[in-house]
């Protein structure tokens, strides 16, 4: 029987061979490009002290607010005379550290809450569900802001705050995965065979939940980086003079009209990292999670 899905639509421009080629090339090419960019960021973050000509907080008021490619500073200097290339490379360190750290905190917390919600039943489950709803009732940034207000500013506190803010989304995905695994026949079979509940959890459910969680975690790193830079941009993240991109963008904001590079350099770096993370995340998701196409 003919496939009704393949019927023609009037006036439709057929797929051009150029377009189709562009699609395919784009997909593979972008993924490769993004991965290389990401690798470059990671490497420069790791080897920062060896790659940078100056120190990250080294001030030199004699050459302050120099535009890029003028004199000795390749990417220019900021209002304190600090070299922007150095600060940007060190910024990668902070961005990636916070990103990974926060996702780790969020994933662990989400694992616990999600498993609890997925494995329990009745009133407990309902209450936990509402608890997760409550966690999700606040956008991550706002929740992180609220936690910062208690914890105070600083690198570790940002990691913690953003991490806790991510527990909500993670616990929701974990719970959904737990429910899905629980419904599988082999879990029921294991139960019928008399294997203890804890053992079932440990041996069957947990492994099947951890893997999608890891995939989700990879995808959310860019989100964590975004939220933490946002916090720093707002002035309530890491404290100055830390070379955090968000902070640098905020510092450069006042000089946008006559020294746009002060915010421009870290901003571009942040944008590139986020895009690269996003492309890689999409690639990871397509590869490992073809069914769940949603956030």
């Amino acid at each position: 029987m003919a496939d009704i899905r393949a019927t023609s639509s009037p006036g439709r421009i057929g797929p051009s061979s150029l377009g189709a080629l562009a699609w395919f090339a784009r997909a593979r090419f972008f993924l490769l490009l993004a991965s290389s960019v990401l690798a470059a960021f990671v490497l420069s973050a790791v080897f920062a002290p060896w790659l940078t000509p100056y120190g990250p907080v080294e001030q030199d008021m004699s050459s302050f607010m120099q535009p890029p490619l003028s004199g000795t500073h390749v990417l220019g200097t900021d209002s304190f005379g600090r070299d922007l290339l150095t600060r940007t490379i060190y910024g990668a360190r902070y961005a990636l550290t916070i990103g990974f750290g926060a996702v780790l905190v969020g994933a662990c917390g989400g694992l616990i809450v999600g498993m609890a919600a997925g494995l329990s039943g009745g009133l407990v489950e309902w209450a936990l569900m509402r608890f997760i709803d409550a966690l999700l009732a606040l956008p991550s940034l706002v929740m992180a802001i609220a936690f910062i207000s208690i914890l105070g500013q600083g690198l570790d506190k940002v990691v913690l705050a953003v991490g806790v803010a991510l527990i909500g989304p993670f616990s929701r995905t974990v719970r959904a995965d737990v429910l899905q695994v629980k419904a599988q026949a082999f879990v029921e079979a294991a139960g019928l065979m008399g294997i203890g509940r804890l053992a079932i959890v440990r041996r069957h459910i947990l492994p099947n939940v951890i893997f999608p969680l890891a995939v989700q975690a990879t995808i959310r790193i860019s989100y964590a980086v975004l939220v933490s830079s946002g916090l720093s941009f707002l002035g309530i993240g890491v404290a100055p003079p830390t070379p955090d991109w968000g902070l640098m963008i905020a510092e450069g904001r006042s000089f946008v009209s006559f020294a746009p590079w002060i915010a421009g350099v870290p901003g571009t770096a942040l944008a590139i990292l986020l895009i690269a993370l996003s492309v890689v995340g999409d690639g990871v998701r397509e590869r490992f999670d073809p069914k769940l196409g949603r956030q």
Partner: protein
Amino acid sequence: MKPMHLSDAPGKVSLPPFIEERDSQTLLAASPLLTVENLCLTRGESLILDHVSFSLRRGATLGLVGESGAGKSTIALALIGLLRPPEVGLGGSFALDGTGELADATDATWLGLRGRRVAMIFQDAAAALNPCFTIGRQIMTPLRRIMGLGRSAARERAIELLESVGLNDAPARLSAYPHQLSGGMQQRVMIAIALSSDPDLLLADEPTSALDVTIQAQIIRLILDETRRRRASCIFVLHDLALASQCCDEIVVLYGGQVVETGPSRVVLEAPMHPYTQALKGCVLELDTEALTPLPSGAPSFASKTPGCRFADRCPRALGKCAAVKPPLAETRGRKLACWNPL
């Protein structure tokens, strides 16, 4: 209303009364409504339809029969212009009485034909009705846009149509959504919509395959009655040979996109000449069947390079040249046949 022949012993391959009745009418004198000549359809590398030819008289019913994937629905979709370049390649020609060549017709031409002179009923009525719009809206839209009726006139006409297809409580049905109706009712709605513009040609793509057996007969009867009343022609796409024998004047037997045998259904089915038609007949489960003779397994190849008859590798009567040279469709003993070694 004539006693429903279809409701007793479904599967009995015998003469339904209305075909004899119609032979006595002057249908033979009328020029054909639809002519299809050497229609070829390619999708990528595959040749889905290979030189399909048949014609259809006004007021007659034609059955396209064959296995799944033989190309029956493809023909129907092509005849209403839903399969055209650039999705597929079309060769050969087909035309309705009064239109120009349709194989390369423009969007505008098709827009003028669809829903006016040609209409189609789909197999899965539930899937063919938009779940987000009420029945009323789906019936009235063509009435208002194509027939130009005003809102209240369209509503009245819609109620008329629903009642004529056997739906009671029509005004209530108008504000219902498709998922609120049963399968049989959904199909009736589809038929009502298809017939609303009095088309010359109705294409029915396995209209009852998704329905209960008890409803099947009613729906087929409905389609036949309505098309006959409007003097329209109807093409049924069926895989059920028994059903085809009972409701179609003419029959086209397809295998692998090739026409193997075609002619008046009585002639073809009582004394099939093509091995495939014979095999199909042998597969039909009748109430007094003693043994089934299934076809040898296999599937046709749609590679455009296959030169000969596509049934050759499954045919018990295949000759050497069958796979190499395609037999032409020739007139023999009251039907057209494409076979080197007929029965």
